[in-house]
């Protein structure tokens, strides 16, 4: 058992009654009309007693757990309450889960991103559960006049064996809610877990399969107006003027106006991505009517000059960020990136004497990898509901990061943040895109202007052309080999537009005596943002493809080669700043080797392997392709994952399967190109997404049994699959694939076959 001090996280134990506006938070989700549908044996209680921010218990023993983080499909709305329920020691079937609204006074880190929800929530949620349990035990001890340490709990029941007294949690809840929060509580031994580690179904599953309103785009209130937006047609352009009369006579159209997303004096934060700071809003009576008006709107656009924006930096200082002028093209992106093959980058890590080793090498292998911009393409387009009247605002919509946008909303509306309530909708996908929530600011400004509730919805074309993309990247790997094919040195030079993908201190750094890592970047006005496993989602593919080619050159099995390097990193690491644990890294390679029967080659199955560490987790993957009708088809994928304790195993496997499908899809098809600043694809007729037929026929996700605290899961299975696929395609076709997307190259070859 571990003892934890509850003072570390005091705000989580505040009672709602102690906070202004507390009732608002509790009422919103009930008003949204979603009755809890968890197996409901107990019925609604007459009264709820709040034990802390996360937990309230009814007099009949029913338990409501608040899931603090926004839900975008990673299933935190089920797994975070599971952690609370475990330490509360309640029966899962009596639990109702409610999405908490944005309430930083009550909850820590209401942010979904970086695969950190469970990792960062682990101790606070366990502590909240254990604290509530301790208060129920204290209440029983007081009522029964027995020592608290003689009381046991199980599945929502309290028992004192000595006196034979028993009660359910509901009977003690009203007294427990009045007691002092204990200063120290004991957490369960992980061997005693009854809920964590047992698969629980998605708490919103029934609502999803029956089409209940769950998403921001589904929200509607009496008197609500609908809004569409029109943004410039290209990066590097801005609004010059528009002709209001071109749409004002149209059916159902109420108003057309432009809005400025940021106030002039506003100092932006890192998540205030300035794609189009001024846009046009069309307000009307229905979505279809405003979308029709959008097509008719006559607007003039002009080239935007270079602009400077103030950005909040570390330590309260603000810095100036330059947004370049110009209309960019993918062809010029490629040639500018290629120039870095000849130019030095910024050295970010150097071990030993790599330059010397390259001079005396008997053989040098050099390969360059690249990948294009990608659009996130969440299935639910950007949208938001806002109701701004006077100096108050209620905003309900899809956001991964309410804290990052609250300051912007407050500044743009000129309303203090305590008068703004952000409520968290279930998101129809996120993938990093909704960490940038300017759709919320836009909806809020539209509502403020018309002083009425409004729902703003982007068209798919708006969504795909609004920026915040995964950047385009390139990486050149070089290896120096001696005459006996021993690896003397490795050199990586990687960069992108507008950021570098390099993680210089990750494997194989630490495993090589002579290692050089260089970085570069090229500024752009095309905006980027986090995209599932930022940077890793490219560099893993480049690095792990290169290691595969290197192993082949050295005559080694690709898994054995990696294990040799990891052994070196474990027993005699080079440098002290290596941000991975070589033993856990090797562990997933060994597990995938076993689970995929790697040693038993089959002539008709072409296998590729890859392994990567990111978001504190280790993943190794094997992709099997077969040739059907002259085309390579992904048959099976085996994944081995070390993410510590797995809270909800089946949902975790689902997440892993999805990340693998996502990776295969983007490796084959993902591409966003630009012509004179405009994206060349704006909908799914041209932007190719992976579909049912292209999905692998089988995916196995295996978790390393672990007692380590949980680490990231939503992202880590994504980066390694790019190289596992490329390495498998090499075996299938005899060709290496250096440029994503792969499908156009495969189709060319297929035509020649």
């Amino acid at each position, binding site marked *: 058992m571990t003892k934890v001090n509850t003072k570390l996280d005091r705000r989580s134990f505040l009672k709602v009654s102690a906070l202004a506006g507390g009732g608002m938070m509790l009422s919103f989700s009930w008003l949204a009309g979603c009755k809890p549908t968890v197996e409901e044996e107990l019925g609604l209680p007459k009264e709820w007693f709040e034990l802390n921010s996360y937990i309230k218990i009814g007099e009949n023993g029913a338990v409501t757990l608040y899931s603090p983080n926004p839900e975008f499909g990673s299933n935190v709305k089920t797994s975070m309450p599971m952690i609370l329920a475990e330490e509360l020691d309640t029966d899962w079937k009596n639990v109702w889960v409610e999405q908490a609204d944005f309430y930083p006074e009550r909850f820590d880190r209401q942010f979904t991103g970086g695969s950190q929800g469970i990792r960062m929530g682990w101790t606070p949620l366990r502590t909240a559960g254990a604290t509530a349990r301790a208060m129920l035990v204290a209440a029983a001890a007081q009522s029964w006049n027995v020592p608290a340490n003689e009381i046991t709990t199980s599945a929502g029941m309290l028992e004192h064996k000595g006196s034979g007294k028993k009660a359910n949690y509901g009977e003690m809840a009203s007294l427990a809610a009045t007691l002092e929060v204990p200063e120290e509580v004991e957490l369960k031994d992980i061997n005693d877990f009854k809920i964590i580690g047992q698969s629980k179904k998605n708490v919103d599953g029934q609502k999803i*399969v029956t*089409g209940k309103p769950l998403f921001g785009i589904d929200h509607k209130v009496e008197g609500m107006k609908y809004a569409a937006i029109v943004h410039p047609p290209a990066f590097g352009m801005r609004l010059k003027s528009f002709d209001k009369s071109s749409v004002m006579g149209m059916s159902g159209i109420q108003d057309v106006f432009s809005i400025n997303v940021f106030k002039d004096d506003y100092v932006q934060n890192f998540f205030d991505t300035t794609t189009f700071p001024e846009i046009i809003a069309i307000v009307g009576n229905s979505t279809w009517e405003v*979308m029709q008006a959008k097509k008719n709107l006559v607007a003039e656009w002009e080239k935007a000059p270079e602009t400077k924006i103030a950005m909040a930096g570390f330590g309260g200082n603000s810095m100036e960020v330059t947004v370049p002028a110009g209309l960019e093209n993918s062809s010029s992106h490629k040639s500018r990136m290629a120039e870095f093959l000849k130019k030095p980058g910024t050295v970010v890590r150097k071990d030993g004497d790599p330059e010397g080793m390259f001079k005396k090498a008997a053989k040098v292998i050099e390969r360059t990898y690249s990948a294009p911009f990608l659009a996130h393409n969440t*299935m639910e387009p950007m949208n938001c509901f806002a109701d701004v009247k006077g100096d108050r605002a209620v905003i309900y919509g899809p956001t991964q990061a309410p804290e990052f946008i609250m300051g912007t909303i407050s500044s743009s509306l000129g309303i203090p943040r305590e008068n703004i309530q952000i409520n968290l909708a279930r*998101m129809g996908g996120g993938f990093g895109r909704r960490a940038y929530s300017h759709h919320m600011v836009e909806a809020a400004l539209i509502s403020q202007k018309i002083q009425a509730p409004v729902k703003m919805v982007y068209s798919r074309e708006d969504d795909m052309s609004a920026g915040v993309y995964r950047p385009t990247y390139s990486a050149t790997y070089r290896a120096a080999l001696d005459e006996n094919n021993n690896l003397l040195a490795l050199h990586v030079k990687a960069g992108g537009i507008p950021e570098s993908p390099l993680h210089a201190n990750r494997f194989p750094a630490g495993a090589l005596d002579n290692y050089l890592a260089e970085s570069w970047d090229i500024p752009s006005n095309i905006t980027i943002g986090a995209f599932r496993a930022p940077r890793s989602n490219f560099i893993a593919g480049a690095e792990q493809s290169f290691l595969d080619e290197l192993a082949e050159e050295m005559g080694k099995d690709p898994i054995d080669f990696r294990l040799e390097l990891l052994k070196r990193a474990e027993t005699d690491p080079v440098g002290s700043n290596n941000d991975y644990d070589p033993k856990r890294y090797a562990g997933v390679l060994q597990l995938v080797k076993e689970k995929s029967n790697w040693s038993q080659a089959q002539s008709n199955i072409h296998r590729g392997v890859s392994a990567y560490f990111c978001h504190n987790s280790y993943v190794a993957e094997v992709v099997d392709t077969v040739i059907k009708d002259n085309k390579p088809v992904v048959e099976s994928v085996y994944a081995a994952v070390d993410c510590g304790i797995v809270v909800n195993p089946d949902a975790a496997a689902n997440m892993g399967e999805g990340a693998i499908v996502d990776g295969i899809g983007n490796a084959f098809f993902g591409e966003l190109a630009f012509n004179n600043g405009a994206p060349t694809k704006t909908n*799914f007729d041209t932007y190719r997404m992976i579909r049912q037929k292209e999905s692998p026929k089988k995916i196995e996700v295996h978790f390393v049994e672990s007692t380590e605290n949980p680490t990231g899961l939503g992202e880590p299975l994504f980066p390694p699959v790019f190289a596992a696929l490329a390495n498998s395609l090499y075996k299938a076709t005899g060709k290496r694939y250096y440029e994503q997307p792969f499908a156009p190259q495969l189709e060319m070859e297929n035509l020649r076959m």
Partner: protein
Amino acid sequence: MAQFNLNVNGKTQQVDVDPSTPLLWVLRDHLDLVGTKFGCGIAQCGACTIHLNGTAVRSCQLPVSAAEGAQITTIEGLSENGDHPVQQAWMEHDVPQCGYCQAGQIMTAAALLQQNPNPSDEEIENAMNGNICRCGTYLRIKAAVKTASQKL
């Protein structure tokens, strides 16, 4: 604007909208049936799939004027108690991640099984290929369609 009598989920409902309005927006904005989702607006993603006289169609490309007189079924009307075999199979396999595309996936699957109660893997893949799932739950979707076919 014009009046249309629509038979949605077994009930006749009257709406007064522009005849070009796609059924998707009539359902969502005028009839408060928001289970049918907007994804692309050009019949490429399948999120807006409904049944028109039992056949799966993309409601984003179906003008309301063409839907009059037909039996329209949405996810809300697929079963009375949310227990259509396809819905049950979706729960059993815990298919959804974000959940946004799943109503469309379920409607496509239900129409497939109505016409072909025992589809092969290839027939399932062909029928479901028009529905994008950005979260990549395709394997569970396929497994759930198979499970549902065994229960029909």
